[in-house]
């Protein structure tokens, strides 16, 4: 699995590359700004690009724009955006088209190496990884006669994992339940929220996100 990294802090860039290589991934490009990343994505066509959202020269939205451009120009390359803050607005912007091959995580998540490497692999394979903070922020919203409040605690846990991009197998592993049980919970959740059940696991991320946001 080939990875490109764009991060302006040397400390983090090298740390990130180290842990990925340790986990058996092939880091093909280490870039310190967005232009360098776009160039190297074109030349090396990695499976996934890990992008810091704030990069030189202005430290505003260079990283995000690079991520959106890679999504548009190279749909086969997964994009995992890292940031010191996670914002619902940015998640919506990143996932505007689809959640396939997109991730958006808080930078701290890299220190949970196992989870992080799993997220990188998932995005590289066309899945999604959405920071749990986004999902919990959206779930924390109160609303009148909210169907979310009719969910059982277990269903809520499944919903959170589902919205964060976990596959059914991933959910089953996290909650230590059977795959069949997960499937039952998922269809029950979709029923209660009135959402049409969608095939792909990425598509249901977007559906749940938009549902929670509305």
């Amino acid at each position, binding site marked *: 699995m080939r990875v490109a990294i764009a991060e302006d*802090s040397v*400390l*983090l860039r090298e*740390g*990130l590359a*180290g*842990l990925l290589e*340790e986990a058996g991934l092939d880091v093909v490009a280490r870039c310190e700004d967005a232009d360098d990343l776009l160039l190297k994505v074109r030349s090396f066509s990695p499976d996934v690009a890990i992008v810091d*959202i*704030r990069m030189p020269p202005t*430290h*505003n*939205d260079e990283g*995000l724009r690079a991520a959106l451009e890679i999504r548009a120009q190279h749909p086969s390359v997964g994009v995992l955006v890292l940031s*010191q*803050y996670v*914002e*619902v*607005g*940015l998640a*919506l*912007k990143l996932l505007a088209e689809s959640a396939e091959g997109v991730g958006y995580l808080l*930078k*701290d998540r*890299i*220190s*949970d*190496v196992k989870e992080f490497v799993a997220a990188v692999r998932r995005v590289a394979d066309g899945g999604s990884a959405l920071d749990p903070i986004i999902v919990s*922020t*959206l779930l*924390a*919203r*109160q*609303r*009148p006669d909210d169907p979310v409040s009719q969910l059982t605690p277990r269903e809520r846990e499944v919903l959170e994992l589902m919205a964060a991009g976990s596959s059914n197998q991933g959910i089953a592993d996290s909650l230590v339940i059977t795959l069949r049980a997960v499937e039952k919970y998922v269809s029950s959740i979709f029923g209660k929220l009135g959402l049409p059940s969608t095939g792909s696991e990425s598509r249901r991320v977007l559906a749940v996100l938009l549902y929670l*946001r509305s």
Partner: protein
Amino acid sequence: MPLIAGLFGLEGEPGRSIVRLTGGKKGVRTTVRAAAPLFTEPVDAQASPSPIAVGAIAVAGCAAAALSFDLSLGNEFGRAPYVHATLVAWITVSYVLCGLIAWRRRPESRFGPLMVLTGFAPTVARLEEASAGPVQAIGDGLSLLPPVMLLHLFLAYPSGRLERRFDRFIVVSGYAVVFGIGLARLLLEGAGLDGGSNGVVNAQRAAIVVLAFGALGALISRRRSSARRFRTSRELLVACFALALVGLGVGIAMTAVDAPGTYVARWVAFGLVGTAPVLLLFGHLRAGLARSAVGDLFIELRSDPEPSELKDALARALRDPSLALVYWLPEYGTYADLNGQAVALPGPGEGRAVTLIDRNGNHVAALLHDPSVEDEPKLLEAVTAAAGIAIENGRLHADLRARLEELRGSRARIVAAAQKERQRLERNLHDGAQQRLVALSLELSIIESKVEGNPGATAQLDQARREIAATLDELREIAKGIYPAVVTGHGLEVALEQLAARAAVPVRLTVQVGGRLPEPIEVAGYYVVSESLANVAKYAEASTATIEVSKMNGLLAVEVTDDGIGGADTERGTGLRGLADRVEALGGRLRVWSPNGGGTRVRAEIPCA
């Protein structure tokens, strides 16, 4: 010679004049030269002629007309002598009477007396038809005096003075030709020589023709250099002068070569010359109408109009749509418009005239107007006197606005400086402490993977990582409180999503801005929403809230409404007050509606053209 020069107004004045009007009890008008550093020119007021003098001059004028009519009947232009005689008599009567009217109305102008004198000139010239010797000789010698005086009169309109060097040159040359060559002819004839020979007379005529066309050029160039579009009666008069000069030039030239039809050319020229007084009277009639405009102005001002309406009222009264009123702000040492914006007075050569207005010894304002308004100084004086108090009010208004503007500027600078400092702090935190902590956490997890066989160490490292995560959470909140970097990075619309998502009550968010706005405006809009939502959480006891952000007519409107208990105290805490400071520093406005039991609505409007 100075005496004659004074009488004929031959001493000049520079191009632009500033007139100072002193309002209040005594309306003293002072003509001030723009070139002079101090306003110290003497008062230029001349007495109006007494009624007896006017009557006597009028009678003399009629007598002169009758005499020249009688003399003209016997002239050498055989065809239709009555036409010629009538035209000459008409010119005499009309110039004398019209000159008297102008003199009475505007004694400070020398145009009236000059016109009266010009009226008598044809009679003097007609004396050449007299039979008596010396009288006939004088008339003969001065036969070209009338055209030269007309030329003088035309160039001296409207002040009676010759204001330009070229004008003075033409007029002085004209008199030199008439008197100098006339005297030479008299001397020649006294010596028994033929002073009246065609050669000398034609040289004299040729010189006058050249001067007449020179004067025509002067009139045309003067007309082109000023923008006097709004005064048609005056335009007509100057056009009439110009045509009359052409008529005189052609007529004299044809007389010199004795061309066929010379008499027709003379009739046309005399007719044009005789038309000028009619147009002048027409102009005075219009000025009379203007005086009634002063009455209208009085009535208009009695209803205490807004300062913004004053300028239009003055423009109507003075019939100058281009008029501008600027107020003197002594503390700033500048003139300013009604909004307190500094305005520079027009310089010389910009085709604008300036009238300074004083009240009770203090300079208050200046009128910037078309130079032609100065043709009616009485009107100008009456209008400014009538508007005295209103102008003073306007000045106070302008002064207040200037101060507000100054305050707003310093407020904006303070807010901007604080903003910049906060932005710098947030950036340092982001690139420094936050990055290092993330790297440290990563380091710990790598160590953790190396001590997998040691459960105690693993647990400790795990605990340390959780501490770091909690610290990062806190730092994130602090950094966001210092400066909302997401607004600068990704815009108001993106940033508001998070605020709406994290609000204490369900929020309906509508953003219709269409792209990014200048950073200070986006940040202010963000703070309006975050502060309002914080208030909703703390005080409103609301069940829902709406956020509406829209851009219309160059104005960003941010409105946060809740359905809570209302009764918000706008002075409570520093929240809303600080918000108002931030919005007003950008020239915007923050309003809060919060009736008891009726919810709270906070609306900010910020210009974002």
